[in-house]
Structure formats: structure tokens, C-alpha cells
């Protein structure tokens, strides 16, 4: 191993030190605290019971883990959260792909404007945008009345749009769509037109050009977008809280409930750890698939 000159090493630490410190203080340390908390006993009035109990013994146990593993309701909620996040990711992918292609193929002078439109929603507050959906999906809004009058013609019972799984999914897709569009666009924009010309010259029609050239070359962007959508969608609690019905509680809501309402910190910690591990496992899986299929180092540059 080569040893960098001391000036270089100091420079490297000066550059990477502050973000590293930030991550240690606000990510690594809290994670450790959470892992420790998951083995402790909930306090009588919330929080945690003392680490050393009255008899002077160290109070560490796996009760919270046992509870998660023995009461199936929690695992069901966890699975339901994975399902919602998966469906959200898939719908985002289906909606974002054509949009990203459209932006990448539009004349250069319009691309920045179109990208700006994609990220425009970020300019207003996340919660306000969710509340806006309450109005859009509300029982007296045009959308619900239109849907229900159509259902009425078919003789079906009217359905509420708000406070339903439908409302949760619509809003999950809405919130996460830009996170899928951006990495896809960044990938597609670099594609070399010569490859598509070559494919066409070699006899490929429009479908084959997409399916055999564009799509496989865009997989790194697909994986990046999928991870950026799936992971936050898995832990979200605000959307089911505001727009969901009684059965739309997801793992994020459960965790929030443990910390703020039930005040069972050890169990909340266990649920958080499960969520973190699931996200890590999926991100690792995506990276592995990406390396295996995309081992060509991204699209060839012109």
C-alpha cells in the first residue's frame, strides 16, 4: 500500500471529516442507541426503564423481539408495507420511464425546463401537498362525484376515494415519482444515438431497439430509481395517517405509534431495526443485480 504525503492526508481528512462526523453523530450513534434500546424494558411512564434495575442487575432482554415474532399482526403490517412500496415502485417506473425518455429526447433547450417541472412539486411543503390530495379526493370534489356517478349508471354502490388504500397509493406514487424520473433521465440522456442507429441498420424495429438496446442500457437508472422510491415508500407514515383508512396503517405508522402514543420505545426500536434491515437487504440485492446485469460500466459515451 502506498503512503500518501502527509499534506494529502491532512487535506483528505479536512474534506471528508465534517460529513463523516455528521454521520457518526446523527446516524451511527442514534442507530446504536436504538439497538441498545431494543433490548431494554419500557419505562412505567414511557421512555425506558433504568438500565440497572432495583436489584442491581443489568436489565437487558429480548421481549420486544419475541413480541414481534410471536404476534403475527406485526409481521402482516410489515408485509403489507413491503407490498405498498413495491406497487408504488412499479407504478412509478411505468409512469416515469416514458416521461424520462420524452425529456431525454426533447431538444436540449427545453430539457432544463421540463426537468424543472418535474421537481417543481418540491417547492411546496410535503404535508401541504398531501392535504391537497384530501381536497382532490374528497367526497364533494369533482373526481369522487364523477367516479360515483359512473358507478351509479352501472348500478354499483358509491365508493369513497378518500381514506382508502387507493388514496394512499395515489399519493405514494405522486410523492415519489420525481425520484424515479431523475435517475432514469440522467441515464437515458447519456445514451449514444449511434447505438440505436446501428440497431436499426441491423434490422431492429422500434420495439426491438427499445427492448434490446435502450432498456438494458437503462437498467442502472432503473435500479437507482427503484431504490430511491422503494426505501422511503417503505417507511412512510404521513400519507397513510392523513389519507388512509383504518386498515391502511403501515409499519411507519406503527413505529410512530410506539414512540409517540403507546410510548413503548423498545418495541418501536425493534420495528425500526426490522425496517432498516429490510431496506439494507433490498438495496444490497438491487446493487448485486445491478452489478451482475449491468457489468458493462454504463452506456458507452459518444
Amino acid at each position, binding site marked *: 500500500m502506498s503512503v500518501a504525503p502527509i499534506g494529502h492526508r491532512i487535506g483528505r481528512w479536512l474534506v471528508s471529516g465534517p460529513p463523516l462526523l455528521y454521520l457518526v453523530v446523527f446516524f451511527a450513534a442514534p442507530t446504536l442507541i436504538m439497538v441498545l434500546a431494543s433490548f431494554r424494558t419500557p419505562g412505567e411512564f414511557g421512555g425506558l426503564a433504568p438500565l440497572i434495575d432495583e436489584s442491581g442487575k443489568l436489565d437487558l432482554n429480548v421481549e420486544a423481539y419475541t413480541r414481534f415474532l410471536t404476534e403475527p399482526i406485526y409481521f402482516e403490517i410489515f408485509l403489507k408495507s413491503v407490498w405498498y412500496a413495491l406497487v408504488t415502485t412499479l407504478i412509478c417506473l411505468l409512469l416515469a420511464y416514458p416521461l424520462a425518455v420524452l425529456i431525454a429526447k426533447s431538444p436540449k433547450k427545453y430539457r432544463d425546463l421540463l426537468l424543472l417541472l418535474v421537481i417543481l412539486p418540491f417547492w411546496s411543503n410535503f404535508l401541504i401537498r398531501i392535504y391537497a390530495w384530501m381536497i382532490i379526493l374528497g367526497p364533494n370534489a369533482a373526481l369522487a362525484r364523477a367516479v360515483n356517478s359512473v358507478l351509479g349508471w352501472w348500478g354499483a354502490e358509491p365508493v369513497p376515494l378518500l381514506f382508502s388504500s387507493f388514496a394512499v397509493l395515489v399519493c405514494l406514487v405522486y410523492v415519489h415519482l420525481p425520484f424515479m424520473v431523475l435517475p432514469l433521465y440522467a441515464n437515458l440522456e447519456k445514451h*449514444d444515438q*449511434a*447505438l440505436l*442507429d*446501428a*440497431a*436499426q*441498420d*441491423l*434490422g*431492429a*424495429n422500434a420495439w*426491438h431497439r427499445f427492448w*434490446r*438496446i435502450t432498456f*438494458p*442500457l437503462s437498467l442502472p437508472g432503473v435500479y437507482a430509481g427503484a431504490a430511491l422510491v422503494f426505501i422511503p415508500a417503505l417507511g412512510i407514515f404521513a400519507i397513510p395517517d392523513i389519507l388512509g383508512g383504518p386498515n391502511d396503517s403501515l409499519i411507519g405508522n406503527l413505529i410512530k405509534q410506539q414512540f409517540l402514543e403507546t410510548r413503548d420505545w423498545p418495541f418501536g426500536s425493534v420495528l425500526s431495526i426490522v425496517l432498516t434491515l429490510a431496506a439494507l437487504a433490498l438495496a444490497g440485492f438491487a446493487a448485486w443485480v445491478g452489478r451482475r446485469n*449491468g*457489468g*458493462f*460500466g454504463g*452506456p*458507452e459515451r*459518444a
Partner: protein
Amino acid sequence: MALLEIQGVTRRFGDFTAVDNVGLAIEAGEFFTLLGPSGCGKTTLLRMIAGFDPADGGRILLNGEDLAGKPPEARPVRTVFQSYALFPHMTVEGNVAFPLRMAKTPEREIAPKIAAALEDVRLVGFGKRMPQELSGGQKQRVAIARALVTHPTVLLLDEPLAALDAKLREEMQIELIDLQKEVGITFIYVTHDQTEALALSRRIAVMNQGRVEQMDAPSNIYNFPRTRFVADFIGHCNLLSGPVIANVRGVVTLDVKGLGPVDVATGSKIARGSSGSIALRPEKIRIEAPSSTPPNHHYRGTVAELLYMGDVTVYKVATQNGTRVEALRANSESGRAQFFDVGDVVEMSWPVDAGHFIAE
């Protein structure tokens, strides 16, 4: 009837006419080259044959059938792109198999065809490699194998050797000639490199500003350029211009500034009083030490610059009034490797049929 007929084809981009009323007839099995400087319209013409650019006027006929309205994927024409355009996510085999799969070739026939194509371009054993593991020359061979594997009627090559270094380029030129003879497919080759064009082609069309200036065999293009542009673009050429002062029995005399009267043999009828140029190749000029009394049609000058190239030495000789004439002397001639120095007075002469007369 020619295999590929290009009849009065024009292509405009806004106000710019990239290809201007071009007519060509290319025979089956021919190695045909479109030669010209960048922006002369040669690549646009190639893209029109491939189907990527529509013609604004004229027709392109392949085997008598009008190609208009046929998309590139439906034409029996393949292109080798300048950037190779290999699919980076496929192996060499995957790349070569691509056109076969698109043509719905039965799967069991694909492997032998890939093997044969890779053998043609001398890449046996490279099938499992990824494109980024190949050198420039190897990528080029894969691109050619991929384009030839379905035996197209015409193969278009767009400056395929431009990205290779000089030595490799020469090797690939010889391989291309051999390959073309072997497969017997019509090659249409686009290049701005005149040596490459001369070495490879059976016929060359020299293009300038969207038009074909001359179409002929390489030796005719080189020895009998029809326009000043062709003479200047192909190789090195002295262009001696001036008014025609005499025309006697097929020998035209021009009054060239700095040299005086210069004779040139020509078959064409040239009126006295018109003007023209003599295209005179440097290697056709005899350069020697001055004699005491210069005979007729010997011209004196001083060596202003010399370029020692190894096999030959190029002398730039300044005559009166600063006119420069480029002359070349092979170093294979007996004696010293270098014959004259800068500042030496020399005498130049050439046979009357060494130059080629170009009317204005």
C-alpha cells in the same frame, strides 16, 4: 443495369444543400469510395443510402427498386459506423448475433454463422469478450463481422479506420481489400483520406460542396484530375496557372507567372486566350544541379525548404517572383541520401506529358 443507382439525389438542411443533384451508378461487387473533405456531403449521401436521411429530390434504386419509404431496418444494406457502435451490454457473439436474431434466423443456424463471420475478420476465440475488452482494431473487426453476417447486398463503411493509428490502419486496409474480394459484397466506403481511397477502391467519386467533381478509377483521378479541386485534394500537386498563349498539335503553352512559358500535352481543344492550369505532381519533376546553359523548358530556382521523409526528400523550390514549385526526389537514387541544401540553385524539368491541363 448497375446494382445501386443514385439519380439526381439532393438533400437540404435549411438553406444548406448538403448533397446537390448527385448521380452515381455502383456495380455489383465493386469497392466504391466517396472521397471528400469534411462537410462535402459524403456522409449524408451514405446515410441516405442506409435510409437514415430522406432525399429531398431524386431517387435511389437498388436492383432497380426504389428505396424511398423503406426504413433502414427494411433495406438489405448494412453500415459500419465510424464510432463502431458496438452494443456495450452484449458480448462479441451477442453483437454479431444481433442482426441474425432480428432477421429471425433459426437459433441452430446462428452459432455457425457467428463462427464464420468471426473467422472472416480473424477474431476466432474472441466471441465471449465484451466490447470494452477489445482494442480499437478488434472493435472495428467486430463491427464489420456484425454488418456482414447477414450477407447484405451493400455494405456502407463510414470512415471506419479514422480512429485507428497509422500502422494499424494500413493493415486493416489490406484486410478490407481481401475481405471484400472474399465475400464479394459491394462496399461503399466513405473517407476524407485520399491515400486510403487510392489504395482501396476500384472507383472513387471525389465530392466537394455536395457535388461529385470527378468519378473514375484511382489512377485516372490521380493522373488526370478534372478540376483544380480534385488535383489539389488528391495528393500533392503543383497548380501552374496562366493564360494560354499557344496551342500547336495537341501541345498547349501557358504563360505561368514566375516560370515563363510552360508546355503541356492535352487531348482537348483549348482556345488561345482562355486560361487554365497545369496539374503537375512533385514526383514527375526532375530536379538536378544547374547546367551552364539551361535548355528549353528547364526552370531555375532556389531550394527554399526541404522535408526529408526517409524514402524521399521533398524540395520546395522558389523561382522568380516567389512562385513555389514542389519537387520530389527519391532517396533510392545513387549517391548521397540528400542531394541539395536550402539555398542551393537547382534546375527543374519535366516531360511535356507529365502535367495535366485543367481548363478554367
